[in-house]
Protein backbone atom coordinates (compact mmCIF):
# COMPACT_ATOMS: atom_id res chain seq x y z
CA UNK A 1 0.00 0.00 0.00
CA UNK A 2 1.29 3.45 -0.87
CA UNK A 3 2.02 6.05 1.77
CA UNK A 4 -1.02 8.19 2.62
CA UNK A 5 -0.79 11.92 2.03
CA UNK A 6 -1.66 12.56 5.64
CA UNK A 7 -1.54 10.34 8.69
CA UNK A 8 -2.31 11.30 12.27
CA UNK A 9 -1.30 9.01 15.10
CA UNK A 10 -2.74 9.53 18.55
CA UNK A 11 -2.71 13.30 18.28
CA UNK A 12 -3.53 15.26 21.41
CA UNK A 13 -3.96 18.97 21.92
CA UNK A 14 -4.84 20.93 25.03
CA UNK A 15 -5.27 24.63 25.70
CA UNK A 16 -4.09 24.89 29.28
CA UNK A 17 -6.08 22.33 31.20
CA UNK A 18 -8.80 22.03 28.54
CA UNK A 19 -8.16 19.00 26.33
CA UNK A 20 -9.44 19.88 22.88
CA UNK A 21 -8.17 16.88 20.88
CA UNK A 22 -7.52 13.42 22.26
CA UNK A 23 -6.26 10.26 20.62
CA UNK A 24 -6.92 11.39 17.05
CA UNK A 25 -5.71 8.83 14.49
CA UNK A 26 -6.67 9.07 10.83
CA UNK A 27 -5.14 8.43 7.43
CA UNK A 28 -5.99 10.36 4.30
CA UNK A 29 -4.93 8.52 1.11
CA UNK A 30 -4.20 10.44 -2.06
CA UNK A 31 -7.21 11.72 -4.07
CA UNK A 32 -9.63 11.21 -1.21
CA UNK A 33 -11.70 13.57 0.88
CA UNK A 34 -12.12 13.16 4.62
CA UNK A 35 -14.89 15.17 6.23
CA UNK A 36 -15.09 16.07 9.90
CA UNK A 37 -18.48 16.67 11.42
CA UNK A 38 -19.33 17.47 15.00
CA UNK A 39 -20.90 20.06 17.23
CA UNK A 40 -19.51 23.52 17.67
CA UNK A 41 -16.49 23.36 19.93
CA UNK A 42 -15.78 19.69 19.23
CA UNK A 43 -12.32 20.58 17.93
CA UNK A 44 -12.63 20.56 14.13
CA UNK A 45 -10.91 23.87 13.54
CA UNK A 46 -8.24 23.08 16.07
CA UNK A 47 -7.48 19.82 14.29
CA UNK A 48 -7.03 21.55 10.93
CA UNK A 49 -4.90 24.25 12.53
CA UNK A 50 -2.70 21.59 14.12
CA UNK A 51 -2.15 19.90 10.77
CA UNK A 52 -1.22 23.27 9.30
CA UNK A 53 1.18 23.79 12.22
CA UNK A 54 -0.66 26.93 13.25
CA UNK A 55 -1.06 25.17 16.61
CA UNK A 56 1.48 22.94 18.30
CA UNK A 57 0.27 19.48 19.29
CA UNK A 58 0.91 18.08 22.76
CA UNK A 59 1.33 14.46 21.83
CA UNK A 60 1.21 12.08 18.89
CA UNK A 61 2.62 12.33 15.37
CA UNK A 62 1.46 14.02 12.19
CA UNK A 63 2.90 12.70 8.94
CA UNK A 64 2.71 14.41 5.58
CA UNK A 65 3.76 12.04 2.78
CA UNK A 66 5.41 9.94 5.44
CA UNK A 67 7.47 12.80 6.88
CA UNK A 68 6.96 13.53 10.57
CA UNK A 69 5.96 17.19 10.46
CA UNK A 70 5.43 17.39 14.21
CA UNK A 71 9.17 16.96 14.70
CA UNK A 72 10.78 20.02 16.30
CA UNK A 73 13.41 20.30 13.57
CA UNK A 74 10.78 20.80 10.88
CA UNK A 75 10.42 24.29 9.42
CA UNK A 76 6.69 25.13 9.56
CA UNK A 77 6.93 27.50 6.59
CA UNK A 78 8.33 24.65 4.54
CA UNK A 79 5.37 22.42 5.41
CA UNK A 80 2.73 25.10 4.88
CA UNK A 81 3.98 25.53 1.35
CA UNK A 82 2.66 22.05 0.64
CA UNK A 83 -0.71 22.66 2.28
CA UNK A 84 -3.59 24.88 1.28
CA UNK A 85 -5.99 26.16 3.89
CA UNK A 86 -9.22 28.12 3.64
CA UNK A 87 -10.89 29.49 6.76
CA UNK A 88 -14.44 30.32 7.62
CA UNK A 89 -13.96 34.03 6.91
CA UNK A 90 -11.44 36.86 6.61
CA UNK A 91 -9.43 34.84 4.13
CA UNK A 92 -8.70 37.40 1.45
CA UNK A 93 -6.36 40.33 1.89
CA UNK A 94 -8.61 43.38 1.54
CA UNK A 95 -5.86 45.69 0.30
CA UNK A 96 -5.11 43.53 -2.73
CA UNK A 97 -7.16 42.80 -5.83
CA UNK A 98 -8.29 39.24 -6.52
CA UNK A 99 -5.39 38.51 -8.83
CA UNK A 100 -2.88 40.09 -6.45
CA UNK A 101 -4.24 37.89 -3.68
CA UNK A 102 -3.68 34.84 -5.82
CA UNK A 103 -0.17 35.64 -7.07
CA UNK A 104 1.23 36.67 -3.67
CA UNK A 105 2.36 33.22 -2.56
CA UNK A 106 3.50 31.95 -5.99
CA UNK A 107 5.70 35.03 -6.29
CA UNK A 108 6.96 35.53 -2.75
CA UNK A 109 7.09 31.92 -1.57
CA UNK A 110 7.68 29.93 -4.72
CA UNK A 111 9.78 32.46 -6.59
CA UNK A 112 7.70 32.66 -9.73
CA UNK A 113 7.91 35.71 -11.95
CA UNK A 114 4.99 38.10 -11.81
CA UNK A 115 3.99 37.41 -15.41
CA UNK A 116 4.07 33.66 -14.97
CA UNK A 117 2.08 33.89 -11.74
CA UNK A 118 -0.54 36.12 -13.37
CA UNK A 119 -0.98 33.77 -16.33
CA UNK A 120 -1.58 30.86 -13.97
CA UNK A 121 -3.89 32.89 -11.74
CA UNK A 122 -6.02 33.93 -14.72
CA UNK A 123 -6.18 30.32 -15.89
CA UNK A 124 -7.51 29.26 -12.50
CA UNK A 125 -9.98 32.14 -12.36
CA UNK A 126 -11.25 31.24 -15.82
CA UNK A 127 -11.62 27.61 -14.86
CA UNK A 128 -13.80 28.54 -11.89
CA UNK A 129 -15.78 31.20 -13.72
CA UNK A 130 -14.32 34.19 -11.95
CA UNK A 131 -12.17 35.61 -14.73
CA UNK A 132 -14.02 38.92 -14.87
CA UNK A 133 -13.43 39.52 -11.16
CA UNK A 134 -9.63 39.43 -11.47
CA UNK A 135 -9.14 43.17 -10.94
CA UNK A 136 -11.81 43.58 -8.26
CA UNK A 137 -11.09 44.15 -4.61
CA UNK A 138 -12.51 41.58 -2.17
CA UNK A 139 -15.08 43.98 -0.69
CA UNK A 140 -16.74 44.12 -4.09
CA UNK A 141 -17.31 40.36 -4.22
CA UNK A 142 -20.16 38.38 -2.74
CA UNK A 143 -19.30 36.14 0.20
CA UNK A 144 -19.47 33.09 -2.04
CA UNK A 145 -17.16 34.62 -4.60
CA UNK A 146 -14.76 35.57 -1.84
CA UNK A 147 -14.61 32.00 -0.60
CA UNK A 148 -14.09 30.67 -4.12
CA UNK A 149 -11.24 33.12 -4.64
CA UNK A 150 -9.78 31.94 -1.34
CA UNK A 151 -9.93 28.36 -2.60
CA UNK A 152 -8.33 29.37 -5.88
CA UNK A 153 -5.63 31.22 -4.00
CA UNK A 154 -4.76 28.11 -2.03
CA UNK A 155 -4.73 26.08 -5.27
CA UNK A 156 -2.29 28.46 -6.91
CA UNK A 157 0.59 26.92 -4.99
CA UNK A 158 -0.43 23.39 -6.03
CA UNK A 159 -0.88 21.98 -2.53
CA UNK A 160 -0.55 18.30 -1.69
CA UNK A 161 -3.48 18.61 0.66
CA UNK A 162 -6.28 21.12 0.98
CA UNK A 163 -7.68 21.97 4.43
CA UNK A 164 -11.12 23.56 4.31
CA UNK A 165 -12.57 24.79 7.58
CA UNK A 166 -16.32 25.40 7.42
CA UNK A 167 -15.86 27.48 4.35
CA UNK A 168 -19.60 27.92 3.85
CA UNK A 169 -20.80 28.61 7.37
CA UNK A 170 -20.62 32.39 6.96
CA UNK A 171 -22.69 32.26 3.77
CA UNK A 172 -26.39 32.28 3.02
CA UNK A 173 -27.83 29.11 1.42
CA UNK A 174 -27.76 30.37 -2.17
CA UNK A 175 -24.07 31.20 -2.01
CA UNK A 176 -23.27 27.93 -0.25
CA UNK A 177 -24.03 25.97 -3.40
CA UNK A 178 -21.62 27.77 -5.68
CA UNK A 179 -18.81 27.23 -3.18
CA UNK A 180 -19.69 23.57 -2.72
CA UNK A 181 -19.75 22.93 -6.44
CA UNK A 182 -16.25 24.37 -6.61
CA UNK A 183 -15.14 21.88 -3.98
CA UNK A 184 -16.87 19.01 -5.83
CA UNK A 185 -15.02 20.04 -8.95
CA UNK A 186 -11.72 19.83 -7.08
CA UNK A 187 -12.62 16.44 -5.74
CA UNK A 188 -13.34 15.18 -9.23
CA UNK A 189 -9.92 16.42 -10.28
CA UNK A 190 -8.32 14.27 -7.62
CA UNK A 191 -7.45 16.86 -4.99
CA UNK A 192 -6.76 15.36 -1.58
CA UNK A 193 -8.85 17.17 1.01
CA UNK A 194 -9.67 17.41 4.66
CA UNK A 195 -12.82 19.34 5.47
CA UNK A 196 -14.80 20.48 8.46
CA UNK A 197 -18.42 21.20 7.64
CA UNK A 198 -21.94 21.55 8.94
CA UNK A 199 -23.39 20.73 5.50
CA UNK A 200 -24.32 17.06 5.79
CA UNK A 201 -25.72 16.81 2.27
CA UNK A 202 -22.46 18.07 0.95
CA UNK A 203 -20.48 15.76 3.22
CA UNK A 204 -22.36 12.86 1.72
CA UNK A 205 -21.49 13.96 -1.80
CA UNK A 206 -17.76 14.56 -1.52
CA UNK A 207 -16.61 12.50 1.43
CA UNK A 208 -14.79 9.22 1.06
CA UNK A 209 -14.73 9.06 4.80
CA UNK A 210 -16.70 10.89 7.47
CA UNK A 211 -15.40 11.30 11.01
CA UNK A 212 -17.67 12.34 13.83
CA UNK A 213 -15.87 14.35 16.49
CA UNK A 214 -17.18 14.81 19.98
CA UNK A 215 -15.31 16.62 22.72
CA UNK A 216 -12.09 16.20 20.80
CA UNK A 217 -12.40 12.48 20.18
CA UNK A 218 -13.28 10.63 17.01
CA UNK A 219 -16.36 8.76 18.12
CA UNK A 220 -17.26 7.14 14.87
CA UNK A 221 -15.89 7.05 11.34
CA UNK A 222 -16.55 5.33 8.05
CA UNK A 223 -18.18 5.71 4.65
CA UNK A 224 -20.61 8.65 4.45
CA UNK A 225 -23.65 6.35 4.10
CA UNK A 226 -22.62 4.39 7.17
CA UNK A 227 -22.18 7.42 9.38
CA UNK A 228 -24.82 9.76 8.08
CA UNK A 229 -27.58 7.20 7.64
CA UNK A 230 -26.74 4.26 9.88
CA UNK A 231 -24.80 5.72 12.74
CA UNK A 232 -24.17 3.21 15.48
CA UNK A 233 -23.38 5.50 18.38
CA UNK A 234 -26.21 7.28 20.10
CA UNK A 235 -24.24 10.56 20.25
CA UNK A 236 -23.78 10.56 16.48
CA UNK A 237 -27.48 9.89 15.98
CA UNK A 238 -28.34 12.66 18.41
CA UNK A 239 -26.03 15.11 16.64
CA UNK A 240 -27.42 14.23 13.21
CA UNK A 241 -30.93 14.56 14.50
CA UNK A 242 -30.20 18.05 15.77
CA UNK A 243 -28.59 19.03 12.50
CA UNK A 244 -31.56 17.64 10.67
CA UNK A 245 -33.94 19.65 12.79
CA UNK A 246 -31.90 22.76 12.05
CA UNK A 247 -32.64 22.08 8.39
CA UNK A 248 -29.14 21.37 7.21
CA UNK A 249 -29.65 17.88 5.82
Amino acid sequence: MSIPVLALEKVRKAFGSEVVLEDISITVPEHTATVFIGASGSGKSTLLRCINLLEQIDDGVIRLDGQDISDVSVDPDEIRRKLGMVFQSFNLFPHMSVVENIILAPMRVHGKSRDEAIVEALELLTRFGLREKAEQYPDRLSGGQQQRVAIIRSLAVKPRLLLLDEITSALDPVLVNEVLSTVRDLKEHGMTMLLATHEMGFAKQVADEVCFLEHGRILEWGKPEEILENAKKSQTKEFLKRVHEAGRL
Partner: protein
Amino acid sequence: MNQEVGRGSENSSDSAPYSFGGAWQPSAIEIERRIARKARSRKNALVATASSIVVLGTLLSIIITSPGWKTLSETFFKWAYGFEVLPKIILGFGANLFLTVIAATSVAFFGLILALVRTSRSPAITPFRLLATVYVDVFRGIPMLLIILLVGFGIPALRLQGVTNNVFILGIMAVIITYSAYVAEVIRSGILTVHPSQRAAARSLGLSNMQTLRYVVLPQALRRVTPPLLNDLVSLIKDTGLVSILGVTDAIRAAQIESSRSFNYTPYVMAAGIFLLVTIPLTRYTDRTLRKSIERQNAQGLA
Protein backbone atom coordinates in the same frame (compact mmCIF):
# COMPACT_ATOMS: atom_id res chain seq x y z
CA MET B 1 -33.17 50.50 -8.67
CA ASN B 2 -34.30 53.10 -11.15
CA GLN B 3 -33.78 50.54 -13.87
CA GLU B 4 -36.29 48.28 -12.20
CA VAL B 5 -38.93 50.95 -12.52
CA GLY B 6 -37.89 51.72 -16.09
CA ARG B 7 -38.09 48.11 -17.19
CA GLY B 8 -41.63 47.72 -16.00
CA SER B 9 -42.93 51.02 -17.36
CA GLU B 10 -44.98 51.00 -20.55
CA ASN B 11 -42.82 53.39 -22.62
CA SER B 12 -39.93 50.92 -22.56
CA SER B 13 -39.80 49.70 -26.15
CA ASP B 14 -36.71 47.55 -25.62
CA SER B 15 -37.93 44.27 -24.18
CA ALA B 16 -34.57 42.50 -23.72
CA PRO B 17 -34.80 41.30 -20.11
CA TYR B 18 -31.50 42.56 -18.76
CA SER B 19 -30.70 45.43 -21.05
CA PHE B 20 -30.58 48.64 -19.08
CA GLY B 21 -29.57 50.63 -22.19
CA GLY B 22 -30.85 53.95 -23.49
CA ALA B 23 -34.46 52.82 -23.66
CA TRP B 24 -35.15 53.83 -20.07
CA GLN B 25 -36.97 57.11 -19.54
CA PRO B 26 -37.79 58.43 -16.08
CA SER B 27 -41.45 57.89 -15.35
CA ALA B 28 -43.80 60.79 -14.65
CA ILE B 29 -43.66 60.13 -10.94
CA GLU B 30 -39.85 60.15 -10.93
CA ILE B 31 -39.76 63.42 -12.90
CA GLU B 32 -42.09 64.94 -10.35
CA ARG B 33 -39.84 63.72 -7.52
CA ARG B 34 -36.81 65.22 -9.17
CA ILE B 35 -38.47 68.60 -9.57
CA ALA B 36 -39.55 68.53 -5.94
CA ARG B 37 -36.03 67.57 -4.82
CA LYS B 38 -34.50 70.40 -6.81
CA ALA B 39 -36.94 72.92 -5.37
CA ARG B 40 -36.18 71.71 -1.89
CA SER B 41 -32.42 71.92 -2.27
CA ARG B 42 -32.76 75.45 -3.71
CA LYS B 43 -34.78 76.46 -0.69
CA ASN B 44 -32.22 74.91 1.68
CA ALA B 45 -29.39 76.85 0.03
CA LEU B 46 -31.37 80.06 0.37
CA VAL B 47 -32.03 79.50 4.07
CA ALA B 48 -28.37 78.65 4.72
CA THR B 49 -27.14 81.79 2.97
CA ALA B 50 -29.61 84.08 4.69
CA SER B 51 -28.90 82.74 8.15
CA SER B 52 -25.13 82.93 7.59
CA ILE B 53 -25.35 86.57 6.52
CA VAL B 54 -27.45 87.50 9.53
CA VAL B 55 -25.35 85.66 12.13
CA LEU B 56 -21.90 86.56 10.80
CA GLY B 57 -22.94 90.12 10.01
CA THR B 58 -24.21 90.64 13.53
CA LEU B 59 -21.04 89.24 15.06
CA LEU B 60 -18.83 91.40 12.86
CA SER B 61 -20.74 94.60 13.60
CA ILE B 62 -20.63 93.91 17.34
CA ILE B 63 -16.86 93.51 17.21
CA ILE B 64 -16.20 96.52 15.01
CA THR B 65 -18.48 98.91 16.89
CA SER B 66 -17.19 97.87 20.33
CA PRO B 67 -15.23 100.58 22.19
CA GLY B 68 -11.96 98.59 22.29
CA TRP B 69 -11.92 97.78 18.60
CA LYS B 70 -9.65 100.65 17.61
CA THR B 71 -6.82 99.79 20.02
CA LEU B 72 -7.29 96.13 19.30
CA SER B 73 -6.86 96.55 15.57
CA GLU B 74 -3.92 98.90 16.10
CA THR B 75 -2.13 96.34 18.28
CA PHE B 76 -2.92 93.12 16.43
CA PHE B 77 -3.99 93.97 12.91
CA LYS B 78 -1.70 96.72 11.70
CA TRP B 79 -1.57 95.28 8.23
CA ALA B 80 0.90 97.71 6.64
CA TYR B 81 3.43 96.93 9.36
CA GLY B 82 2.54 93.27 9.17
CA PHE B 83 3.39 93.01 5.49
CA GLU B 84 6.60 94.91 6.11
CA VAL B 85 7.87 92.20 8.47
CA LEU B 86 6.27 89.35 6.58
CA PRO B 87 9.39 88.35 4.58
CA LYS B 88 11.36 87.80 7.78
CA ILE B 89 8.60 85.65 9.23
CA ILE B 90 8.29 83.65 6.05
CA LEU B 91 12.05 83.10 6.14
CA GLY B 92 11.65 81.87 9.69
CA PHE B 93 8.79 79.61 8.62
CA GLY B 94 11.23 78.01 6.19
CA ALA B 95 13.02 76.71 9.29
CA ASN B 96 9.73 75.26 10.57
CA LEU B 97 9.13 73.49 7.28
CA PHE B 98 12.67 72.20 7.13
CA LEU B 99 12.37 70.92 10.70
CA THR B 100 9.07 69.30 9.81
CA VAL B 101 10.43 67.47 6.78
CA ILE B 102 13.50 66.14 8.57
CA ALA B 103 11.59 65.26 11.71
CA ALA B 104 8.65 63.64 9.87
CA THR B 105 10.93 61.33 7.88
CA SER B 106 12.97 60.31 10.89
CA VAL B 107 9.88 59.90 13.04
CA ALA B 108 8.25 57.68 10.42
CA PHE B 109 11.36 55.50 10.48
CA PHE B 110 11.89 55.30 14.24
CA GLY B 111 8.17 55.12 15.01
CA LEU B 112 7.78 52.16 12.69
CA ILE B 113 10.77 50.36 14.19
CA LEU B 114 9.47 50.94 17.73
CA ALA B 115 6.00 49.71 16.75
CA LEU B 116 7.43 46.59 15.11
CA VAL B 117 9.60 45.83 18.11
CA ARG B 118 6.67 46.27 20.49
CA THR B 119 4.36 44.02 18.49
CA SER B 120 6.94 41.34 17.75
CA ARG B 121 6.56 38.08 19.60
CA SER B 122 9.97 36.70 18.82
CA PRO B 123 11.85 35.72 22.00
CA ALA B 124 15.13 37.18 20.73
CA ILE B 125 13.48 40.60 20.69
CA THR B 126 12.26 40.45 24.32
CA PRO B 127 14.82 42.86 25.85
CA PHE B 128 14.26 45.34 23.03
CA ARG B 129 10.52 45.03 23.49
CA LEU B 130 10.88 45.98 27.14
CA LEU B 131 13.12 48.92 26.26
CA ALA B 132 10.72 50.10 23.58
CA THR B 133 7.81 49.95 26.01
CA VAL B 134 9.68 51.98 28.61
CA TYR B 135 10.78 54.46 25.94
CA VAL B 136 7.26 55.00 24.68
CA ASP B 137 5.79 55.33 28.15
CA VAL B 138 8.42 57.84 29.24
CA PHE B 139 8.45 60.08 26.22
CA ARG B 140 4.71 60.13 25.74
CA GLY B 141 4.35 61.18 29.34
CA ILE B 142 6.68 64.21 29.39
CA PRO B 143 5.67 67.60 27.94
CA MET B 144 7.64 68.14 24.76
CA LEU B 145 8.79 71.55 25.93
CA LEU B 146 10.63 69.86 28.78
CA ILE B 147 12.35 67.46 26.41
CA ILE B 148 13.39 70.34 24.20
CA LEU B 149 14.87 72.14 27.19
CA LEU B 150 16.57 69.00 28.48
CA VAL B 151 18.11 68.12 25.14
CA GLY B 152 18.75 71.65 23.93
CA PHE B 153 20.40 72.96 27.09
CA GLY B 154 21.32 69.73 28.83
CA ILE B 155 23.43 68.10 26.15
CA PRO B 156 25.66 71.12 25.50
CA ALA B 157 26.13 71.41 29.28
CA LEU B 158 27.82 68.02 29.25
CA ARG B 159 30.61 69.56 27.16
CA LEU B 160 31.22 66.25 25.45
CA GLN B 161 33.79 66.07 22.70
CA GLY B 162 32.25 65.76 19.23
CA VAL B 163 28.71 66.39 20.41
CA THR B 164 27.01 69.28 18.72
CA ASN B 165 26.02 72.55 20.33
CA ASN B 166 23.96 73.46 17.30
CA VAL B 167 20.52 74.37 18.65
CA PHE B 168 18.90 73.55 15.37
CA ILE B 169 20.13 69.96 15.43
CA LEU B 170 19.39 69.58 19.13
CA GLY B 171 15.91 70.96 18.57
CA ILE B 172 15.22 68.47 15.80
CA MET B 173 16.52 65.66 17.99
CA ALA B 174 14.13 66.59 20.78
CA VAL B 175 11.19 66.70 18.38
CA ILE B 176 12.12 63.34 16.87
CA ILE B 177 12.55 61.72 20.27
CA THR B 178 9.09 62.79 21.38
CA TYR B 179 7.14 62.23 18.20
CA SER B 180 8.65 58.78 17.59
CA ALA B 181 6.95 57.71 20.79
CA TYR B 182 3.57 59.13 19.67
CA VAL B 183 3.77 57.68 16.19
CA ALA B 184 4.96 54.29 17.43
CA GLU B 185 1.77 53.98 19.47
CA VAL B 186 -0.43 54.95 16.55
CA ILE B 187 1.22 52.42 14.23
CA ARG B 188 1.11 49.75 16.92
CA SER B 189 -2.61 50.24 17.38
CA GLY B 190 -2.99 49.84 13.61
CA ILE B 191 -1.03 46.59 13.64
CA LEU B 192 -3.14 45.24 16.49
CA THR B 193 -6.41 45.92 14.67
CA VAL B 194 -5.50 43.71 11.71
CA HIS B 195 -7.64 40.60 12.17
CA PRO B 196 -5.63 37.58 13.40
CA SER B 197 -7.14 35.47 10.61
CA GLN B 198 -5.26 37.61 8.14
CA ARG B 199 -2.00 36.50 9.68
CA ALA B 200 -3.16 32.90 9.76
CA ALA B 201 -4.22 33.09 6.11
CA ALA B 202 -0.84 34.51 5.12
CA ARG B 203 1.10 31.95 7.13
CA SER B 204 -1.04 29.17 5.62
CA LEU B 205 0.10 30.27 2.20
CA GLY B 206 3.66 29.65 3.32
CA LEU B 207 4.64 33.28 3.80
CA SER B 208 7.29 33.74 6.48
CA ASN B 209 6.74 35.94 9.49
CA MET B 210 8.56 38.85 7.86
CA GLN B 211 6.72 38.41 4.57
CA THR B 212 3.40 38.31 6.40
CA LEU B 213 4.29 41.54 8.13
CA ARG B 214 5.48 43.22 4.98
CA TYR B 215 2.82 42.18 2.48
CA VAL B 216 -0.25 41.57 4.61
CA VAL B 217 -0.18 43.18 8.05
CA LEU B 218 1.66 46.48 7.57
CA PRO B 219 -0.14 47.64 4.41
CA GLN B 220 -3.48 47.21 6.14
CA ALA B 221 -2.27 48.69 9.43
CA LEU B 222 -0.74 51.78 7.83
CA ARG B 223 -3.77 52.40 5.69
CA ARG B 224 -5.93 52.31 8.77
CA VAL B 225 -3.78 54.75 10.74
CA THR B 226 -3.20 57.24 7.95
CA PRO B 227 -5.78 59.72 9.32
CA PRO B 228 -4.35 59.80 12.87
CA LEU B 229 -0.83 59.99 11.43
CA LEU B 230 -1.84 63.00 9.36
CA ASN B 231 -3.22 64.54 12.55
CA ASP B 232 0.14 64.02 14.15
CA LEU B 233 1.78 65.68 11.17
CA VAL B 234 -0.35 68.79 11.71
CA SER B 235 0.66 68.81 15.38
CA LEU B 236 4.28 68.30 14.41
CA ILE B 237 4.26 71.35 12.13
CA LYS B 238 2.94 73.46 14.98
CA ASP B 239 5.23 71.94 17.57
CA THR B 240 8.35 72.71 15.55
CA GLY B 241 7.62 76.24 16.80
CA LEU B 242 8.61 75.12 20.27
CA VAL B 243 12.26 74.87 19.32
CA SER B 244 12.27 78.67 19.10
CA ILE B 245 12.86 78.54 22.83
CA LEU B 246 16.38 77.30 22.10
CA GLY B 247 16.99 80.33 19.92
CA VAL B 248 16.32 78.74 16.54
CA THR B 249 15.05 81.52 14.28
CA ASP B 250 11.78 80.02 13.14
CA ALA B 251 8.58 81.87 12.31
CA ILE B 252 7.69 82.36 15.97
CA ARG B 253 11.13 83.59 16.97
CA ALA B 254 11.23 85.93 13.97
CA ALA B 255 7.85 87.35 14.97
CA GLN B 256 9.01 87.68 18.57
CA ILE B 257 12.10 89.64 17.56
CA GLU B 258 10.02 92.06 15.48
CA SER B 259 7.33 92.38 18.07
CA SER B 260 9.70 93.18 20.90
CA ARG B 261 11.20 95.87 18.76
CA SER B 262 7.90 97.61 17.96
CA PHE B 263 5.71 96.65 20.93
CA ASN B 264 3.09 95.61 18.41
CA TYR B 265 1.66 92.13 18.12
CA THR B 266 0.86 92.10 14.42
CA PRO B 267 3.96 89.96 13.64
CA TYR B 268 2.51 87.18 15.82
CA VAL B 269 -0.75 87.38 13.94
CA MET B 270 1.16 87.17 10.66
CA ALA B 271 3.01 84.09 11.94
CA ALA B 272 -0.29 82.54 12.98
CA GLY B 273 -1.67 83.21 9.50
CA ILE B 274 1.29 81.46 7.87
CA PHE B 275 0.85 78.38 10.08
CA LEU B 276 -2.84 78.29 9.21
CA LEU B 277 -2.06 78.51 5.52
CA VAL B 278 -0.37 75.13 5.81
CA THR B 279 -2.31 73.45 8.59
CA ILE B 280 -5.86 74.16 7.43
CA PRO B 281 -5.55 72.46 4.02
CA LEU B 282 -3.77 69.56 5.71
CA THR B 283 -6.54 69.27 8.29
CA ARG B 284 -9.20 69.31 5.58
CA TYR B 285 -7.29 66.64 3.72
CA THR B 286 -7.01 64.55 6.90
CA ASP B 287 -10.74 64.83 7.38
CA ARG B 288 -11.36 63.57 3.89
CA THR B 289 -9.00 60.62 4.30
CA LEU B 290 -10.68 59.74 7.56
CA ARG B 291 -14.11 59.81 5.96
CA LYS B 292 -12.92 57.64 3.10
CA SER B 293 -11.26 55.14 5.40
CA ILE B 294 -14.43 54.84 7.48
CA GLU B 295 -16.46 54.28 4.34
CA ARG B 296 -14.03 51.60 3.25
CA GLN B 297 -14.19 49.83 6.58
CA ASN B 298 -17.97 49.94 6.53
CA ALA B 299 -17.98 48.44 3.06
CA GLN B 300 -15.79 45.63 4.30
CA GLY B 301 -18.09 45.03 7.21
CA LEU B 302 -21.00 44.53 4.84
CA ALA B 303 -19.23 42.07 2.56
